[in-house]
């Protein structure tokens, strides 16, 4: 029996790096072939097309990279610190992978690609729910928690874009002020 000579997740990890660095449209199947060492036929067999790779890479990113970060929102203790740790966890990465893959890909493609739009939407909804329950846990009323979670999510989107170009000092100040204004 023929076994798979490559590891799907490894292919996807390399694809995440490529898409993140070069943009989805700026990166060809050829480059993925070169980078992963997996031939075109196998890639198409596994993922059908380049879009299939993208979808699977978003799923992997969610499961492998975001789980720990999203779990930070379940921490007990000081609310302000919990929120700040959450935002910062996305921004303390290596320069080229700073920020959030969903926001990055969403900025590029969510206008034109329905699937990307839906994944982005699901992902942001998940974060909003976590924010909401964190606030409820911190004695905010349901209504207030929902309202503030909406804006903490907005702050998330902003810090994953505007925050990318901040120095760490500016970023710290921006997040501190933002969280305080919203709470």
């Amino acid at each position, binding site marked *: 029996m023929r076994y798979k000579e490559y590891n799907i997740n490894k292919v996807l990890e390399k694809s995440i790096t490529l898409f993140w660095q*070069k*943009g*989805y*449209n*700026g990166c060809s199947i050829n480059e993925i072939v070169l980078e992963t060492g997996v031939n075109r036929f196998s890639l198409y067999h596994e993922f059908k097309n380049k879009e299939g790779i993208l979808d699977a890479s978003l799923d992997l990113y969610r499961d492998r990279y975001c789980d720990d970060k999203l779990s930070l929102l379940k921490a007990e203790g000081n609310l302000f610190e919990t929120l700040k740790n959450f935002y910062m966890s996305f921004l303390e990465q290596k*320069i080229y992978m*700073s*920020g959030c893959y969903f*926001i*990055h890909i*969403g*900025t*590029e493609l*969510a*206008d034109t690609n329905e699937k990307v*739009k839906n994944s*982005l*939407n699901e992902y*942001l909804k998940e974060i909003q729910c976590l924010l909401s329950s964190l606030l409820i846990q911190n004695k905010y009323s349901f209504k207030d928690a929902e*309202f503030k979670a*909406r*804006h903490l999510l*907005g*702050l998330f*989107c*902003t810090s994953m*874009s*505007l925050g*990318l*170009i901040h120095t760490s000092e500016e970023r710290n100040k*921006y997040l501190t*002020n*933002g969280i305080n*204004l*919203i709470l």
Partner: protein
Amino acid sequence: MSRGLDSTYPELIEKAQEIFWLRGYKGVSVKDLSEHLNVGETILYNKYSKDSLFLDSLDYYTNTYTGPFLNLLRETTGGLDSLRSFFYDLVDALINKTFPRSCLVVNTVVELRNENSEVIKRYKAYLKEFKESIVIVLDKAYDMEQIKHKDKIAIYAEFLMGIVFTMGIFYKLKPAEELRQYIDEQLSFIR
């Protein structure tokens, strides 16, 4: 007839800007540019270069769209109400596709970040102008007693600038009504 001699440079930039706005810097190849501008690839390589066309496109964008938009904002007299209309107009432009996509400068920040110092110079200048414009409006809002804390105006301005970045994502996912509500709520945080 040699291709590329039938358009003036400003015409080329206007066209280049369209495609960069839609697809970003990396999503446009020299071949795409060549087809869109109807200029031979050799000429693009030898005479213009994708990088300089992109930088000039950014300038074209800020001069044509954001510059006049911000000039108008600075001249308004309604304080927070003017700021609200400014952001509402932005939502309309995005939803009605008057703007083909979210702000080119914002997208460029996400796409290119720290990769190109000329790009950095440009978006820093743009963000500075944007923030200063909001400060001018907030100063008026303070004089009109719409906001209480004069010493926090700089912080407010930076916070509200975030709306443009948030809208860059939210407009793809949410109906206009929710976007307007979001803007109202953002403004309520600074009163």
